[in-house]
């Protein structure tokens, strides 16, 4: 019975992973990831990590992915074009080294000579993986990591607010949307790192790259919103 469940959950996880990578529309990628997470939770359950499995579903799939969905909806996930630069070379590298990586990891873990891999694992107490044990561990042995992790969450929250805030309020956002004459007269790449490093200014490789204040929208090569 456990084997069947394992294969089902395993195939689900792998399918979800492949789906994340392959699917064009970011929204669907998110959904693929959610399914992947749920399968992974099943695998955790099989490994007798009940608390972690539930936490995975509730926190990860429930909160983090919901955040993802919100952002994708706000930003607008356009379908990605196929085969642009750096393109071909990078795909080959990705495939090749990905395969190499997989092989190596397998050799590393499975061929490592650890006896216990061939087994189901050590005998465990009844309370293994239960919330009680996790809680006890968190508050006794791993108190410091626990506190630091919560501190980290605080920092991340503050950081996210700072990053995404609107500077100066709503009216400022409207002001920022106005063109000025300098945006037309000033050469492209002015004030950018490219100008500092290469001295490149006014040398336009594609249409001028506007920085804060211009209202020119970035339209990807394929502005099709469908799918």
């Amino acid at each position, binding site marked *: 019975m456990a084997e069947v469940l394992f294969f089902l959950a395993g195939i689900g996880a792998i399918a979800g992973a492949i789906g994340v990578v392959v699917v064009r529309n970011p929204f669907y990628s998110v959904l693929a990831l959610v399914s992947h997470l749920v399968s992974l939770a099943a695998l955790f359950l099989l490994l007798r990590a009940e608390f972690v499995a539930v936490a995975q579903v509730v926190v990860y799939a429930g909160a983090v992915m919901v955040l993802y969905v919100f952002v994708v909806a706000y930003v607008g996930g356009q379908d990605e074009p196929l085969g642009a630069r*750096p393109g071909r070379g*990078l795909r080959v*590298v*990705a495939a090749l*080294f990905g395969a190499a*990586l997989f092989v*190596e990891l397998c050799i*590393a873990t499975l061929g490592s000579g650890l006896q216990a891999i061939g087994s189901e694992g050590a005998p465990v107490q009844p309370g293994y993986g239960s919330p009680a044990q996790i809680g006890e561990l968190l508050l006794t042995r791993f108190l410091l990591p626990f506190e630091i992790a919560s501190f980290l969450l605080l920092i991340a929250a503050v950081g996210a607010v700072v990053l995404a805030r609107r500077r100066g309020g709503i009216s400022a956002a409207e002001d920022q949307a106005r063109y000025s004459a300098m945006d037309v007269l000033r050469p492209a790449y002015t004030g950018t790192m490219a100008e500092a490093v290469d001295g490149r200014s006014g040398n336009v490789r594609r249409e001028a790259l506007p920085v804060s204040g211009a209202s020119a929208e970035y339209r990807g090569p394929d502005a099709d919103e469908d799918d």
Partner: protein
Amino acid sequence: MSSVELFAWLTLLLPLAGTIVVALAGRRLSGRGAGYVATGAMTLSFASAVGALLALQGLHHEERQVRAVAWDYASTVGIDAQISLLVDPLSVFMILVVAGVSTLIHLYSIAYLDSDRGYVRFFAFLNFFVFSMLLLVLAGNFLLLIVGWAFVGAASYMLISFWYRRTTATNAGIKAFVINVIGDVGLVLGTFFIVRHTGSLDFLETFEGIKSDFSPNDADLVAGCVLLLVGAFAKSAQVPLHTWLPDAMEGPTPVSALIHAATMVTAGVYLIARMHPLFELAPTAADVGAVIGCLTLLIAGTIAIAVTDLKRVIAYSTMSQIGYMIMAVSAGAYAAGLFHLMTHAFFKALLFMAAGSVIAAMAGQQNLDRMGGFKRSLPFTYGCMVIGGLALAGIPPFSGFFSKDEILLLIGDRGGWYWILYVAGYVGAFLTGIYTFRMIFRAFWGDSVPEALELEEGHMHHPDVHSNPANGEIEDTEVGFPGPEHHIAEREPAMKIAMGTLALLAIVGGLLQIPKVTHVIDHFLEPTFAESALYERDPSDGLISFGLILGTIVGLAGIAIAYVVWVRKPGMAARVRARLRPLHGLFANKWYFDELIGVLVVRPAQWFGSFAQQTFERVFVNGVLVGGATGLVRVGSSAVRAAQTGFLRYYAAMLVVGMVGLTMYFLLLS
């Protein structure tokens, strides 16, 4: 400190004090004040030299080599350098000559350079030069000798290029300095060769241990002595390092009188005399010196017959007479050589002073072709010139006769192949008579040139436009060029006193050493040369009489020929010149030594310099080494920079590749 030491230090340091005072405060003194201060310092220095002489003579005969030590300069492994002077008869002789003649020349210069804007600078330099020369002759060890040697070279450079806005003068100064530096190198290397064996820099210690440190004609000793000779030749303008002396006539006439007649060029003679124990133990080197001296006196004599610049005739005459002195001290006739040094200082300085007066009357023009008939307008100058000329030509009873004769007598007495030098010496005396009186007859006899006519009427010739007499370039009279006024002896008492004193000395100086009658110089110098095998000599009476008579005849013959060619039959000179055109060309072009040195030394050096710049510096150092290093860095950094593409995915790919590689490595390792 004994009185000898005190007087020696005073003699040395008073000119230095004079330099400092004149250099710092000279501008505040009006008119000729700087000149008086400098001359005063020199007079006091001469007085101290006389005091040193008297104090030295008061010592016992064996004690007359006094070492005056100031302090230890450096005592380390193998070197014992002290600031010490050696006061012995030789050095006292030299300081008397140097200080005495310098005082008279200072006196002369007070008036001669009166209108020059660089008056103060001149006297500062002149005092500094005298200080250096005194340091050279008073030095008690090789270190101070080399220091004095170098200072003298530097002072000579400063004084030759005194009129520094004239390119001819600066070129001449550089030429003199470069050749002097070659001599300096020889001197230092020679010192090294010698000190390597003796282990001591001090003169007295070196001379005491010389017989135990070296075997006769030891290779190192000969090499060292030959290198010392190189130094002596460069300083004393002997062949082949002589080409700087005629060009050095670009300096003011007092400079020529002091440096290039009486003092600096005699430094080589002093060196050989001082180092006589070494030269006596290495006869090969001494022979080299004698041969070069002989060659020089002949070559310089022939050139002097053909050149037309008044000062250059006297310069070549100096070269020739120094050849006599070098020949003498190389052959062991030390007292004779030094005696000739003294008399030569007198009459040569006198000749230069008189020439300066004539040139002033010509308003700076030095060409003999343009002079004539100054006998009537410059009587005092003419008289001094004749006295100097007679002394130079070796006519009794003037001083030059006795000193030159003493030299040739002792050379003939040595026998062997030295007879060749004996004959050459008399040929040289014949040439001396010819060129000396050629100069006098051409400048003073004959029809008066316009400048002389002006002077006869009472006012000196004054050119409207001042120009360089050598190449005719127009110049002004501000700092760096000669001043607007010229001063002749007849109108300046200071010049008259100086020239008169020297004329007197030129006449009576010979009385100090008449063969078989007086031996003042011989006895005075004996303590220095006590261990010399060649010093005490007793030539036969027959040789003495023969030499005296031959010298007189040769000198008079030279004067007679000069009289006939340049006074009696005016066109004869031109005809002889036409008939012997190649020979005259050889003489007039100074035996092509300048061209020879140009081809052998200057041209290869220039080629090497341009090669170093064009090929080595530009291509190899700049291109390969520097460019290569920077190019390598640039290529390397651009290769590394290629990894910074800015693409995020590229960076991630590099991460993955790296991780794969590392994992592979660790897997293989395990």
